[in-house]
């Protein structure tokens, strides 16, 4: 049965979604239970998948849909392909989905009302799409799955207020342009190679030696443009901040950690597997330097925009844009450490973004204030929440032993290895900006006057914390916060193993 793990962990949320829809309107409670079960199953399965992949040393699991064996060396069916990298990201996706479902227990009735079942159906289908994207080995199937994630996210975002609907519309436009560019790129590849399987395309290009062909270069550019649009790399980021900050909170908490990261994974996959390192990092190609510089610009601009924001979620979304710059730059550094660092940063950034978004959502919900002054005096009022937020923030800044520190470590060493000092400087700069941003918040939370509580209380001895602050946050929101904060630390502690797995897997493809 373990041969079927990849498809099984896809099917579980799919069936879950069907059941949720059958519940019809209003029945949020059952839908919650169903999605807990289905996502729990798929997270367990993805753990097994990871173990299985680790057990086969360095190999990868291939799963032929419909059992069609290749004819004359070319896949005629669709093939799933899972290696350590894919298994790690799948685990992250399913876990984030599961934990986020816990978080959404109380929020769904409050924010989407009777449409709860549809929300849960959509979120499970989104997870199906993300896992499929990660595991598929077929360029066109990748497009279909990208569209699945896009459609679900359009709907999920548009379930929010009127601003959400508008930003979701912009997201539709941008997302469609991005996906269509990707589709065009795949079409060009198909015209030149006559196959759609990623490995087969690579081998065909290798055998025919089409690397210098104009159409292949254009196809590469198109696919990159598409993927960058979907991951909101800096000049193409316009849709992201509004979409994530006006969406329902449990949508934001789910999408912010995952969507951009998975697209980064797709980018790395396309770069290293579909086209291959020799083509991407070739000396006579102009784009290598250019894109590292683009990522530098993205990092700097994202940090500055985040610094300029007074709205909590907006600030976090701009930080995400800066982080996307990290990953794109790291992937393009043409050093194994850089790629592996970018990959490790996918995981760690997912963890810390998740942590920060949950904490921010709790704060906004509890204080009813979306500006930064919501944080005034929160260390006394809701210390548990603030502990989670602090861990996330420290990781964003990159202080040990949080995972943010180690991902910065690897990215910087990648930059030093490949001599891209501008990237190193940009990373350090953004950590400094993050430090400013977050310590500004910590100071507010630490000294700020609590609304409603008098001065002498707010400087009272730490022993008499007003307890209702803690009680007022339900466990279904605190537990996810703690799990995510814990995962930030755990990822940091066990970065050595993760990094060795990742770099081994990448060594295999880079040769």
């Amino acid at each position, binding site marked *: 049965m373990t041969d*079927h793990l990849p*498809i099984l962990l896809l*099917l579980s949320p*799919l*069936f879950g979604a*069907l*059941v949720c*829809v*059958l519940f*019809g*309107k*209003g029945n949020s409670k059952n839908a919650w239970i169903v999605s807990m079960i289905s996502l729990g199953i798929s997270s367990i399965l993805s753990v097994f998948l990871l173990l299985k992949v680790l057990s086969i040393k360095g190999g990868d699991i291939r*799963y032929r*849909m*419909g*059992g*069609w064996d290749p*004819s*004359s060396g*070319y*896949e*005629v*069916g*669709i093939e799933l392909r899972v290696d350590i990298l894919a298994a790690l990201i799948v685990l992250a996706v399913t876990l984030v989905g599961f934990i986020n479902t816990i978080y959404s227990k109380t929020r769904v009735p409050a924010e*989407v009302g*009777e*449409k709860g079942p*549809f*929300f849960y*159906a*959509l979120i499970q*289908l989104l997870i199906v799409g993300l896992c*499929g994207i990660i595991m598929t080995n077929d360029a066109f*199937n990748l497009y*279909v*799955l990208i*569209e*699945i994630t896009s*459609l*679900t996210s359009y*709907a*999920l975002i548009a*379930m929010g207020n009127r601003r959400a609907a508008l930003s979701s519309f912009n997201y539709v436009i941008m997302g469609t342009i991005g996906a269509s560019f990707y589709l*065009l790129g795949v079409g*060009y590849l198909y*015209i*030149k*190679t*006559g*196959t*759609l399987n990623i490995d087969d395309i690579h081998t*065909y290009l290798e055998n025919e030696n089409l690397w210098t*062909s*104009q*159409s292949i*270069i*254009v*196809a590469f*550019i*198109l696919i990159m443009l598409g993927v960058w649009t979907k991951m909101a790399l800096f000049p193409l980021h316009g849709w992201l901040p509004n979409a994530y900050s006006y969406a329902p909170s449990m949508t934001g908490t789910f999408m912010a950690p995952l969507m951009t990261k998975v697209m980064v994974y797709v980018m790395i996959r396309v770069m290293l597997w579909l086209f291959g390192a020799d083509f991407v990092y070739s000396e006579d190609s102009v784009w290598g330097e250019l894109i590292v510089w683009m990522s530098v610009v993205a990092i700097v601009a994202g940090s500055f925009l985040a610094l300029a924001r007074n709205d909590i979620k907006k600030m976090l979304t701009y930080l995400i844009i800066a982080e996307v710059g990290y990953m794109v730059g790291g992937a393009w550094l043409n050093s194994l450490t850089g790629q592996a660092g970018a990959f490790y940063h996918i995981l760690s950034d997912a963890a810390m973004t998740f942590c920060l978004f949950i904490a921010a959502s709790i704060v906004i919900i509890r204080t009813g204030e979306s500006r930064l002054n919501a944080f005034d005096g929160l260390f006394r009022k809701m210390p548990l929440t603030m502990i989670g937020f602090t861990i996330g923030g420290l990781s964003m800044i990159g202080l040990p032993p949080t995972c943010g520190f180690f991902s910065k470590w690897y990215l910087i060493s990648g930059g030093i290895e490949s001599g891209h000092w501008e990237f190193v400087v940009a990373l350090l700069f953004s950590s400094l900006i993050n430090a400013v941003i977050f310590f500004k918040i910590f100071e507010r939370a630490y000294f700020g006057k609590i609304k409603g509580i008098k001065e002498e209380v707010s400087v009272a001895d730490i022993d008499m914390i007003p307890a209702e602050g803690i009680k007022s946050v339900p466990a279904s929101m605190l537990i996810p916060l703690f799990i995510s904060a814990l995962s930030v630390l755990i990822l940091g502690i066990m970065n050595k193993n993760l990094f060795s797995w990742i770099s081994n897997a990448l060594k295999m493809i880079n040769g």
Partner: protein
Amino acid sequence: MKFFGLLSVIIVGFLLLSATKDFPNWGDEDSPANSGPVSSFYIEKTEEKTKVPNMVTAVLADYRGYDTMFETVVIFIAGIGIIAVLRTYGNNESIPKNQVGDEGAGLLARMTCSLILPFIQLFALYVVAHGHHSPGGGFQGGVMLGASYILLALAYGLARAKSCFSEKRTLVFAALGIFIYVGWGVLCLVMGSEFLNYSALDSILPGGVEMARSHSMLAVEIGVALTVTAIMFSMFSNLSTKGRLDKGL
């Protein structure tokens, strides 16, 4: 903005055109896409392996059945997405029977509609069922079937159409369609081979491995058709009433 848009559009256009100079010409038989092993496999081996003369259907429902499954899911997502975005559960108790017929088109249109509706639906079912041998398949047939209900709604008003295709029923049908598709794949999985590997079903389906594939294709096409029908109608009814589902148009 306009200038910027124009500029970027032109840049993209030139980028795309610059690539076409080493593209195959129009109708080139020896282009990699047309003469490559994959497409030649589809053309030469399809009938031999699946007994389905319509290669498009075979590729759609068997070789790339995984794709098609997600394609159906996309439709499904669109349907429930529209409901999730647009549907407003206000006072949407359906209009009492005596009012049925107040809306909708005039007498002539209704008569024509009631005359041609059965044939439309019959043809739709034919397109679904005969997709193996002639152009057609689940999507086309499903769209026609959905269109027939839309026509009903146009002629007799949404309430009439809802009386035979209520919202609950649309959701059930949509889910059922995907359930048939995915369940069929799971059945293959239970029979001990890969997901959607229909050849595993020859023990329970008549006519050997090839016919098993052929029959399975019919099954999944039916699933697709169900989903498409339901979602088409629900899309129409939601969009036409801003999600109130009270009175069409």
